[in-house]
């Protein structure tokens, strides 16, 4: 038999001024299943809560309704009070007669009538409530950081320095990401390598960090605190332990003309190589696609010269299964394919380069040793034209968003160019200058005022070659007339885009991404580093275009979220989750398709001999977030949502 207690709160005048609380209490008192109904000025106060506790104990209540303010306000308070009196907290419900009744209706009779219906309907619901237990999930205190650029390194170091265990996975042969490719960095012009390489080394040598380079995350299963991750260790054909990194093999490899990715095609590399001189780990890999041995079955020169017998052509991809508690995704970005812009002549004219190529030209460790020279003939350009927004803010051809870093790096390029080629002229075609950041506006002003960068506001419409010069035609929107600039070199500030496989990888992770492929945060403003999947966090440009300071800040934020998680032994979760009735489930998998969290698994039902009888849906309580979408989807009525079951809701509706 139900023994429900109804507690009608006056909320001072807030409720009592409109709702006739005495009438409400009387109506509830006579309602079937209600053992006690009382009213009081403030039930949320200490004496108020005490009186509820007392009633629970004295009357042996099986359910409690507090008719008061919004459950969003005090549900937790009253559930706690019930628990303290020994009543399962999920047997307590709040009837909202303030926000949705007394405060919004002017007529007292109407408000009272409505309050009675609201309260009655919840009494009907609570009669069908079940005792629920919070779900406790253990936490594996090991983080997976995906991506070894500056964001990934920062997150890994922050977690590791706080004592957490980290597995850092990088798909290239070395840590470093795009930051390692940069020359000097804005707005301080310190050399990227100088600040980056020590961090790379620190990450690689940290006792709490396990570094897996040339490796890719293949599969992610499980849920917060309990992910199972499979990592593919791509065959390097070089034994990491035997190799001393002497580089003899690299010297002797007969394949010398493979376009070097790290130098954006401005230099060549052999088939056995490290991406760059300061690579971490400084051990080479064999690029199977270009290796003479793999192509023709003959060569093995590297094996012959290697003093430590580190080369092994029989190596195969290996798989590593890891138990992980939290994941930081820091997979970074790519630059947009510039061939989209035929009018800019990229690919047609060797002296039209991308911003990233310019970085390599300006970099002391780059193919020219830091001399800014034309790719076509190695001569120093007298005039360089920079074209901003090459792909960004252009929904018709490129991407609609602003890539955020180009205004700043173009100003930097113009500066570096002025510092290195003293007689040179630079012209920058821009749409507007977006230099919001500490020291940023000062920086672009410096490029203009001290380093003579000539800014022209307008888009470039055409680019062609004439008498050995690149002719750039655009429009100067400030002067309102077309301009033509003859240039020796053109630099395109190409749009920053997500990794080409980002959308697919989002599926592997079970997180969302936007129309472009940038990963989605849980809330753009209030939960910017979390994803909708608990336990997976974001750092850096995989979320949206970001510069180094922003990436580092977000990485540290993600690390702090991971550490907060690791500070707990067990996670307590609301037991509002779906439950499946395996007896009636037909295995149609409608629920599997509906669930936004991949929380529904397919379970085999076998007989005693282990033969498969049928397969049914089974809800993973760790993954289920309790939206109830699956429940509505199920045609055989097999799934129900704890706390909001069909019966409860029907009863609530019928109680109205």
């Amino acid at each position, binding site marked *: 038999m139900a023994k429900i207690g109804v507690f009608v709160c006056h909320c001072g005048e807030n409720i009592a001024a409109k709702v006739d609380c005495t009438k409400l209490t009387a109506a509830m008192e006579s309602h079937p299943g209600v053992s006690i109904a009382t009213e009081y000025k403030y039930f949320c106060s200490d004496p108020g809560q005490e009186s509820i506790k007392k009633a629970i104990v004295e009357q042996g209540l099986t359910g409690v309704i507090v008719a008061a303010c*919004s*459950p*969003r306000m005090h549900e937790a308070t009253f559930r706690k009070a019930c628990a303290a009196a020994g009543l399962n907290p999920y047997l307590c419900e709040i009837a*909202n007669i*303030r*926000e*949705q*009744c007394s*405060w*919004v*209706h*002017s*007529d007292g009779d*109407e*408000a009272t*009538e*409505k309050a009675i*219906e*609201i309260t009655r*309907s919840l009494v009907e619901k609570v009669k069908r409530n079940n005792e629920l237990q919070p779900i406790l999930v253990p936490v594996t205190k090991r983080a997976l950081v995906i991506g070894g650029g500056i964001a990934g390194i920062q997150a890994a170091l922050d977690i590791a320095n706080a004592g957490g265990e980290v597995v850092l996975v990088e798909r290239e042969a070395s840590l470093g990401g795009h930051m390692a490719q940069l020359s000097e960095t804005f707005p301080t012009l310190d050399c990227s390598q100088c600040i980056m390489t020590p961090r790379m080394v620190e990450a690689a040598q940290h006792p709490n960090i396990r570094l897996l380079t040339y490796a890719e995350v293949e599969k992610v299963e499980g849920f917060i605190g309990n992910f199972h991750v499979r990592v593919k260790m791509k065959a390097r054909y070089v034994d990491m332990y035997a190799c001393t990194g002497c580089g003899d093999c690299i010297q002797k490899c007969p394949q010398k003309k493979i376009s070097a990715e790290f130098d954006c095609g401005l230099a060549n590399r052999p088939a056995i190589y490290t991406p760059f001189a300061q690579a971490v780990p400084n051990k080479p890999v064999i690029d199977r696609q270009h290796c003479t041995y793999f192509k023709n079955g003959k060569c093995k020169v590297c094996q012959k010269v290697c003093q430590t017998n580190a080369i092994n052509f029989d190596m195969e991809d290996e798989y590593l299964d890891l138990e992980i508690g939290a994941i930081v995704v820091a997979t970074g970005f790519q630059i947009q394919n510039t061939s989209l812009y035929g009018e800019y002549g990229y690919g047609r004219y060797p002296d039209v380069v991308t911003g990233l190529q310019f970085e390599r030209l300006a970099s002391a460790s780059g193919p020219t040793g830091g001399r800014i020279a034309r790719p076509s003939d190695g001569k120093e350009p007298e005039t360089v034209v920079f074209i901003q927004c090459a792909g960004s803010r252009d929904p018709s051809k490129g991407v609609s968003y602003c890539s955020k870093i180009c205004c700043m790096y173009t100003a930097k390029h113009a500066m570096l160019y002025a510092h290195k080629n003293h007689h040179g002229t630079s012209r920058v075609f821009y749409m507007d200058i977006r230099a919001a950041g500490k020291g940023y506006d000062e920086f672009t002003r410096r490029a203009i005022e001290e380093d003579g960068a000539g800014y022209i506001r307008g888009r470039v419409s055409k680019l062609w070659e004439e008498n050995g010069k690149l002719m750039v035609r655009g429009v100067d929107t400030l002067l309102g007339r077309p301009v033509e600039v003859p240039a020796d070199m053109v630099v395109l500030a190409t749009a920053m885009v997500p990794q080409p496989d980002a959308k697919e990888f989002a599926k592997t992770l079970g997180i*969302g991404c936007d129309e472009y492929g940038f990963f989605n945060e849980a809330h753009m403003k209030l939960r910017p580093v979390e994803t*909708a999947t608990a336990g997976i966090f974001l750092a850096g440009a995989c979320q949206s275009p970001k510069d180094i300071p922003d990436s580092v800040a977000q990485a540290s934020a993600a690390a702090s979220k991971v550490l907060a998680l690791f500070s707990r032994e067990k996670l307590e979760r609301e037991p*509002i989750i779906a439950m499946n009735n395996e007896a009636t489930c037909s295995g149609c998998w409608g629920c599997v398709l*509906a669930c*936004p*969290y991949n929380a529904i698994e397919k379970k085999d039902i076998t007989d005693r001999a282990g033969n498969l009888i049928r397969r049914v849906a089974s809800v993973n309580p760790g993954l289920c*977030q*309790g*939206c*109830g*979408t699956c*429940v*509505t*989807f199920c045609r055989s009525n097999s799934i129900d*949502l704890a*706390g*909001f079951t*069909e*019966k409860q*809701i*029907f*009863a*609530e*509706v*019928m109680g*109205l």
Partner: protein
Amino acid sequence: MSEVFEPKIVAFVCTYCTYAGADLAGTSRLKYPSNVRIVRLPCTGRISPMFILKALQKGADGVLVSGCHPGDCHFDHGNYHARRRWTVFNSLLQFAGVPEERVKFSWISAAEGIKFAELIRDITEDIRKIGPFEEYHTLIAETGSAAPL
């Protein structure tokens, strides 16, 4: 009829957006007609067509389904499921003779207290105009099907 007909309207809303929006209307002390009864659910994705039928069976003259705006669903995309389901179910309802105006769908965010109050005003006005859902009540009376749980 001299007296204005006061319809009964049942609203099924998600707790993250529309319920919060209704709370905001409350804390802002916006006034709207008292005809609406709110049933709170975790997500519009949980709103089964059966709930709508149950509400009509109980005597509702109008039903409202409301959740987060597209892209804002706390549960990623429960609201898209809800919208699709509602679209299909609505045509079935119409086929069965339930006028379109009786079942409404809308998006109200947690910040849209004003919009919530306006919506309730509009819906109440609309349903007042089309009058009580007599056909359905008669049908239930004739078939003798009570409203079992």
